């Protein structure tokens, strides 16, 4: 009975409208940044004359578009992709644009999967789930709510289930990652970070060698990584431990960012932590931060509740 009441409550309100919008903006800027960084090498990565041997894109083939055609006209594809990102950034086209963006992103990944990492893999799933979410209540040209009760309840349910899907998938990633790690001798015996810090490809700083040779650092960092990955999927669901375990996760990913030169992956994982906090928690945190800034800098920044106007209610489609 309590479960049924809880499930019904998911239809009452979109509990993550703020962070869904924030993440939508982040996705757009992340994708644009990736294309900009790859700009000089787009021909190598996606062109027909690249030294990278092509693989079928699968999705476009299902739609009757051969892969070689896509590669020969990759500039048009990239242009369309950027246009869709901009539309998504402003919330134009809403769920349809989100779906198009997911399909383009999936196609781009298949056109060159060699440059992908776990962050890109997670991003793909988040974008798939966000097709069902109303992430347009903030930071979009036209936020709105359905007047039709069924559509409104469906929209709220879709949004809340989208976030639940993201958080569940995220916890599953940590769980299986920890499962695989524990199975490996170097993690079990507390020496894994010696290897991760020493591999040339991932040696991000001149201090890596020094740190890798320090037995205490290696042991602590190895077990810290394991403990975070093992306990995150459990402790993140409890209010008392959520913030602590999220902060530990941020520390872990920032460490990997600095010491292992893995950039996009870590930012995506850190940004995903925001989905574990509801709108009210974000509102309280932002209001606290804004009040502190107003007090220290003697500014008059509006607080979160004042800033956001009520969304327009429009007729259900």
């Amino acid at each position, binding site marked *: 009975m309590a479960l049924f009441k809880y499930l019904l409550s998911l239809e009452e309100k979109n509990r993550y409208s703020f962070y869904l919008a924030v993440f939508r903006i982040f996705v757009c800027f992340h994708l644009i940044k990736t294309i900009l960084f790859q700009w000089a090498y787009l021909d190598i990565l996606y062109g027909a004359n690249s*030294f990278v041997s092509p693989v079928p894109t*699968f999705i476009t083939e299902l739609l009757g578009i051969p892969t070689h055609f896509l590669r020969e006209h990759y500039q048009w594809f990239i242009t369309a992709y950027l246009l869709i990102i901009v539309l998504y950034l402003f919330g134009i086209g809403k769920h349809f644009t989100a779906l198009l963006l997911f399909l383009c992103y999936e196609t781009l990944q298949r056109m060159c999967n060699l440059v992908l*990492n776990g962050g890109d893999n997670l991003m793909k799933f988040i974008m798939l789930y966000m097709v069902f979410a109303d992430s347009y209540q903030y930071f979009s040209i036209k936020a709105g709510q359905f007047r039709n009760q069924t559509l409104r309840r469906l929209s709220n349910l879709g949004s809340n289930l989208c976030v639940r899907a993201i958080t569940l998938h995220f916890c599953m990633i940590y769980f299986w990652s920890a499962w695989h*790690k524990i199975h490996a001798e*170097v993690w079990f015996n507390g020496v894994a970070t010696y290897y991760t810090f020493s591999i040339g490809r991932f040696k991000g700083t001149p201090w890596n060698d020094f740190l890798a040779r320090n037995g205490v650092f290696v042991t602590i960092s190895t077990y810290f990584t394991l403990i975070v990955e093992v306990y995150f999927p459990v402790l993140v669901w409890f209010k008392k431990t959520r913030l602590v375990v999220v902060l530990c996760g941020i520390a872990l990913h920032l460490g990997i960012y600095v010491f292992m030169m893995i950039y996009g992956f870590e930012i995506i994982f850190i940004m995903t932590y925001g989905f574990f906090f509801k709108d009210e928690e974000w509102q309280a945190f932002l209001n606290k931060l804004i009040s502190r800034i107003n007090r220290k800098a003697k500014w008059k920044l509006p607080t979160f509740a004042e800033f956001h106007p009520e969304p327009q209610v429009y007729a259900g489609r």
Partner: protein
Amino acid sequence: MNILRPIIYLAFISYFAATFLFTMPDNYVSLQFYHQQQVFQQWLFQRWGFFAPPPNYDERLYYEFRDKLTRQTKTFEVMEPIVTLKQQKAPFNWHEDIVDYLLSGSMTGIGDDLHDMRQDLIYRNKQAGKSATDTSGEHMLRETIQHGISFQTLRNYAAIVAQKNRLDTARHEVRLILSHVMLPKFADRFSTKPRREEAYFISDYVTLNR
């Protein structure tokens, strides 16, 4: 809503049950659904075993160019300079990062394929009552790898390396040597011995033209 609600929740639960099942390590239960897992991974590929275990080596990729007429060879190693530049330019190293991922990803693909095919060969030889792999088996492995996508990518990159070093691509053929420079074990981390290098794949000489 009363009709949609159970459909939505059933779809949600089924999707996550499938995701959980098809991302777990191979076990008796998951292997019963091997074909379904292949279909699932084809549509929604995901692999979450990060650095488990981490590599215990640095990769080296040697291109050995041989003049078709004079038989003189020139060898160039490409991974170490890329990695060095990547470290020096961090975090503004996206060019080196892209090339590193392209080459390293291809080398890893070859290594994984070799490992899987060798395991299969050993199993088949055992079934046939043979105690060791023979040269025909190794030749078949090499041929299979050389027709694969990963090898084609590395071979195509050879033309770029040749051009950078002012070698005539029409006059030269190339052989790829993939090796691992092993990291010393943790217990030997202060050792000053030179690191051991092991070649795990040496190709035939192939032309530089695609």
